[in-house]
C-alpha cells in the first residue's frame, strides 16, 4: 500500500508505453530472423543412402526413413516445436478472449502482452520452418542419392553380363518348358525311384510357393501404387522426392505468411505505442504546469 501510493498516476501510464516501445524494438529485431534463428541448438539428422536402404522394398524404404527421422534429434526438435506452437496458439486464444473482456490499463497491458506473445509465436513458427526445411532438404538429398545408386546399379551391367543373363533366362525358360517331358522320359527309361534332391525339391518348392503367396498378399508388403497403377522403386523414390520438394515450396509460401504476420504485429505495436503516446487533453502537461506553479509558492512564501 505505501509503495503504491508513492507512484504518481502519470507514471502508471509510462510503464505500458515503455513496454510497447520495447515490444516495437523486439519486433524490429524480428526483421533479421536469420540471425536469431541460428542461435541455440542445431539438431541434426544425417541419414545415409546405404546399400541396405537401396535394397529395401519401396514402401519399407519410406517407413525406414520416417522411423529414422522420428528417432533423430531433428525429429525430436520438430515435435517439440509443434508442441510449443500449439501451446502458444492456445495462449494467444486465451489472451484474445481476455482483451475483449478487459478495460482500461489492464486492457492496455493485455494488448501489450498479446503483441509480445504473437511475436513469440512467430519466432516459434520460424524455428519450426527452419527445422522443417532442414528435414525436407535432407530427404531430398537422400532420395537423390538413392536414385543415383539405383541408376548406377542398372548401368553397371556390361554388355557381356547382359548377354550372359539373357542366355541364362533362355536356358531357364527352356528347362521349365521341357521339365515335364524330361521327367516322363526319365521315368520311362528308369525303374529307380526319384532321387532325394528331386523329392525334397518338389516338397520345398511347394512350401516356398505357399510362403511367397502369403508374402505377396500380406498387407504390409503391398507395393505402392498411384490410381491403382503399381509403381517401380525408381518411380516411388521420384514421387517421394517430389513430395519433399513440395514440402519445401510450401514452406517458402508459409514464410511469406509469416512475414505478413510479423509486419502486422509490428504495425499493431506501433499503433499501440502511438495510442499511448498521444497527449491526454486533461493530462499530464497541464498538471505538470500546475504543479510547477504551485511549487513557486514554495519559493515565494516566507
Amino acid at each position: 500500500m505505501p509503495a503504491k501510493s508513492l507512484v504518481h498516476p502519470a507514471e502508471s501510464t509510462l510503464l505500458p508505453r515503455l513496454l510497447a516501445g520495447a515490444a516495437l524494438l523486439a519486433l524490429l529485431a524480428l526483421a533479421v530472423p536469420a540471425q536469431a534463428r541460428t542461435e541455440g541448438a542445431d539438431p541434426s539428422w544425417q541419414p545415409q543412402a546405404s546399400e541396405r536402404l537401396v535394397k529395401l522394398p519401396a514402401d519399407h524404404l519410406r517407413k525406414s526413413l520416417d522411423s529414422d527421422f522420428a528417432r533423430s534429434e531433428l525429429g525430436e526438435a520438430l515435435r517439440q516445436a509443434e508442441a510449443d506452437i500449439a501451446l502458444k496458439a492456445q495462449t494467444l486464444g486465451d489472451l484474445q478472449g481476455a482483451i475483449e473482456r478487459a478495460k482500461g490499463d489492464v486492457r492496455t497491458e493485455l494488448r501489450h502482452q498479446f503483441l509480445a506473445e504473437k511475436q513469440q509465436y512467430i519466432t516459434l513458427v520460424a524455428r519450426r520452418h527452419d527445422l522443417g526445411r532442414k528435414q525436407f532438404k535432407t530427404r531430398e538429398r537422400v532420395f537423390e542419392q538413392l536414385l543415383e545408386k539405383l541408376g548406377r546399379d542398372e548401368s553397371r551391367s556390361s554388355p557381356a553380363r547382359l548377354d550372359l543373363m539373357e542366355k541364362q533366362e533362355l536356358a531357364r525358360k527352356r528347362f521349365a518348358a521341357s521339365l515335364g517331358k524330361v521327367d516322363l522320359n526319365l521315368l520311362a527309361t528308369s525303374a529307380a525311384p526319384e532321387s532325394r534332391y528331386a523329392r525334397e525339391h518338389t516338397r520345398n518348392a511347394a512350401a516356398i510357393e505357399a510362403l511367397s503367396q502369403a508374402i505377396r498378399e500380406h498387407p504390409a508388403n503391398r507395393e505402392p501404387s498411384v490410381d491403382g497403377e503399381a509403381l517401380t522403386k525408381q518411380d516411388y523414390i521420384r514421387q517421394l522426392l517430389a513430395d519433399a520438394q513440395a514440402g519445401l515450396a510450401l514452406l517458402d509460401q508459409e514464410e511469406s505468411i509469416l512475414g505478413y504476420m510479423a509486419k502486422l504485429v509490428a504495425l499493431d505495436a506501433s499503433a499501440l505505442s502511438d495510442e499511448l503516446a498521444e497527449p491526454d487533453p486533461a493530462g499530464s502537461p497541464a498538471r505538470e504546469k500546475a504543479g510547477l506553479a504551485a511549487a513557486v509558492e514554495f519559493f515565494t512564501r516566507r
Partner: protein
Amino acid sequence: MFRSPNLYPLRCVAFAAAAFAGLAAGAAQAGPLENLERERALLIDTLLAPELSPAERQGKVEIGRRRLVDLERMVLRDNSLTGRNTPTVRRAFDNYDLTFLVHAAAEKNVTILDNWLEQAGLTTQSLMGAKRGRR
C-alpha cells in the same frame, strides 16, 4: 562300337574339356556348376570307355545320368549364378545342349551320346564318311 579304338580321341576330348573346366573354375570350393562339369565328363568317359561291357556301361550310365539330372537342375535353379560373368559360367550357358546334356537329350528324344556327338560335330554320316589318311 564303344570298343572301337577310333573313339579313343573322343575320350581325350572329353577329359580335356573336363580338365579345362576345372582349371577355369579355379576356385578352391566347387559349386554345382563345377560338379556338373565333372559328372558330365565322367559320364561321357563312361559312354566312350572301350573296356566296359554293355551291361556295365548301362549300369554306370544310369547312375551317372540320375546324378547329372539333379546337378543340371541345381545349376539351372541356382540364382547365385545369375549374371556371374566368369568364364566357367559364360561357357556353361553358351551352349545349353552341351552343358545340360541329359535334359537336352530327353527334350529331343535322343540318347545322351547322340546328343553329345551331335554337339561335338560328329554325326553318323560324318563318321561313316571318314577315311583314314595322312595329313
